[in-house]
């Protein structure tokens, strides 16, 4: 077994692009679920809105990339309003069903042949729409050490990505420790009590939904840029559920937990997958039990099992406070 390769892959994944994407998606969910108690199951939809906005703006309308980012943010605000207006007055599980339906609507419309010309159908959109971004890259040669490797483009995405994560985490810290943030937490604990104090609960929930959604769409920008392509099936409900796993792993309602959660999540996934893969290739695991092509399926099974066990045995995650995690405030 090639342990150096496993270490390389695992370390690369722990601080890599996917970790950044999931950290941002989970920070958005932390705003919704951790601080406000909103059960948003459509975070993948927000990522898709961000990713597609950028790709379509640049590829089809030849809008400069940095204006396309603004369009993406605008669209995600719009998406949050459309989702929020009918559902934020309803019980938590209704919001869950509507948001999951909305994100599936986006994915199904994006992959339909009807809008093939604009959205690229099931193949999505590929092209050099991130050119303006990669032109700014001062590290074109990439990083090459014995334990960690990044190509030039990846290194640039990773550096900018972590900078964005740092800025957004700082903003989150400021927000949740402000009087505004305390109102959100109060809504999570007891909506009626907040209402009786004269606060407009609906408005606060809407603001939370919009802010978390915008953070999700920024994750979508990075998803699209890092691969220079947007593919509809990447934005399935599984993305949302794994973002939840990341959030719960770190501990909901903690500012740093999505980052730690994402790092541990990807560390474990890539480590286990590479170990399994190597073990199968080297013949430690017999072929009739697990084929090389089935390692990915085992990975998904473990991810599902992990989410279950985490929720059963340690719903507060690594850093969370069980008392603060009022999962049943509104159920």
């Amino acid at each position, binding site marked *: 077994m090639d342990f150096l390769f496993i270490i390389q*892959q695992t370390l690369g*994944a722990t601080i890599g692009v*996917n970790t950044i994407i999931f950290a941002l998606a989970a920070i958005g969910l932390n705003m919704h679920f951790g601080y406000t108690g909103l*059960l948003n199951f459509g975070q993948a939809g927000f990522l898709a809105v961000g990713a597609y906005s950028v790709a379509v703006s640049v590829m089809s309308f030849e809008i400069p990339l940095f204006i396309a980012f603004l369009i993406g943010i605008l669209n995600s605000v719009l998406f949050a309003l459309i989702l929020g*207006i*009918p*559902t934020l*007055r*309803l*019980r*938590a*599980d*209704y919001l*869950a*069903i*509507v948001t*999951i*339906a*909305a994100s*599936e*609507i986006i994915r*199904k*419309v994006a992959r*339909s*042949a*009807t809008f093939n010309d604009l959205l690229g159908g*099931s193949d999505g959109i590929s092209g050099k729409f991130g050119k303006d971004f990669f032109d700014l890259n001062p590290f074109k040669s990439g990083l090459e050490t014995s334990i960690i490797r990044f190509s030039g483009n990846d290194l640039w995405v990773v550096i900018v990505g972590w900078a964005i994560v740092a800025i957004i985490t700082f903003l989150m810290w400021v927000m949740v420790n402000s009087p505004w943030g305390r109102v959100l937490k109060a809504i999570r604990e007891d909506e009626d009590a907040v209402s009786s104090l004269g606060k407009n609960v609906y408005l606060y929930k809407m603001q939370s939904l919009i802010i978390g959604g915008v953070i999700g769409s920024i994750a979508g920008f990075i998803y699209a840029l890092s*691969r220079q392509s947007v*593919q509809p*099936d*990447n934005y*399935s409900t599984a993305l949302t*559920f794994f973002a*939840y*796993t990341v959030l*719960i792993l770190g501990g909901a309602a903690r500012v740093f937990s999505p980052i730690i959660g994402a790092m541990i999540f990807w560390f474990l996934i*890539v480590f286990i*997958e*590479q170990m399994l*893969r190597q073990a199968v290739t080297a013949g430690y695991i017999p072929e009739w039990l697990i084929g090389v092509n089935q390692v*990915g*399926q*085992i990975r*998904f*099974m473990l*991810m*599902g*099992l*992990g*989410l*279950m*066990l*985490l*929720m*059963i045995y340690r*719903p507060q995650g690594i850093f969370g406070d069980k008392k603060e995690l009022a*999962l*049943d405030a*509104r*159920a």
Partner: protein
Amino acid sequence: MFTSTFSASAALLTSVCASVSTVVKIRDLIKKGELLVVKKNSLNTISIFKKATYSLVFAIVASIFSFGVSLNSATAAQENEAVIYGVISDKDGIPLSGIKISAVGPDGFENQVATDGQGAWQIVTKATGAYEISIDEKSLPEGQGLTNPERATVKVSVFMLGIDLAIQFPIGVGVVKATRLERAPQLALDGLILGLIIALAALGLNLIFGTTGLTNFAHGEILTMGGIVTYYLSSSVGVPVIIAVPLSILITAAGAGWAQNQYLWKPLRKRGTGLIAMLVVSIGFAIFVRYFFLFIFGGDTEQLPEYAGQAGLDLGLLSITPKSIITTIFAIIFLILATLWLLKTKMGKASRAVADNPALASASGIDVEKVIRSVWILGAALAAYAGIILTINQGVSFLMGQDTLLLIFAAVTLGGLGTANGALIGSLFIGLLVQLSTLFIPTELKYVGALLVLILILIIRPQGILGKRERIG
């Protein structure tokens, strides 16, 4: 050039037939995003070159076949040109002459030809690139139309000169010519059947929600289990379908109903796990089970060996297969029995009492756990049968449950979460809506319509058609 084209087309036909099974598999894979996963998985650099090669080959093969184009290297073509050609004949195989075919290609390439006396046409190209070949449907004789109206224009890629490409425009009874009024009865029937399938699954989901408060995201996987168990009993063990179906319902009711409640949800209820925490657990469980099915069953859609290619009965505007009639009749019987159970039996009444107020029910001597156990077993049995109907009529895949789950949720929300009759009405409505919406929107977007209605209903009447106001919180 011309004669060789014809001699080659015979060879072509056999090659197409031989590759049909592969094509179907590849198409299924593409539908499920399996190929895309291979293509996109940037995490595994381990065999990236191998994968890239595979996916390239797959992509080429898939794109060629899924557009109905086949390669014909047997033709002795000239090195500096590629001929795109085909033969057009009507539904009875008689060649059609004078059908207009036009082509648009790179560098402003445009050409229009008409089929000759043998129904043959060809367009000579001298540059590689993407071409769009269109058939002028207006030039087809009365009563003839493309079997797939969305394929009036076919995109082909001439990637090498010297290799000719054949394109087929399958002609049949003009589907495109059928008016909305003529299509409506068939779609309504399909919608009704889909509605009954959804109703079977929704009833269980709703009963479980009513008695335990669990929004079960793993309910779709019960459908898949029912289908897969039937498939294994029928194809591997060799049990006749008529016996395999009740066996599968029993096995699924025991495994996905009794055992799931006994070993997963009952302990969680005992621990006092919150409802939203249980909802998240059900998501994790659904992912685990779904990929477990993929692991043991593979990614293909499989048909039961029995009754696979049953011909439909032609009833004028309607066409229905005998197996569909029988499975539907049983669906209605099971729904009636379940409703009678709810309304007339002691246990059914107790389950409604538990749904209404568990504490009060418990205080008045109802064994709440026993009620929940019955509800799980009944719900799983009904869902298993829903999966079996889908399996017998459309085949089974590991994604079957997931694909149906959102429709079930839509139906339940529409009818009113936690109400039994509401689920039935909501299901029939969603089934009809999904099918009838294809009169106005493309078939591939039919589920989108249903999901949009779900959101609209929540704006107008959040408690659903028969729901109670206090349930929406």
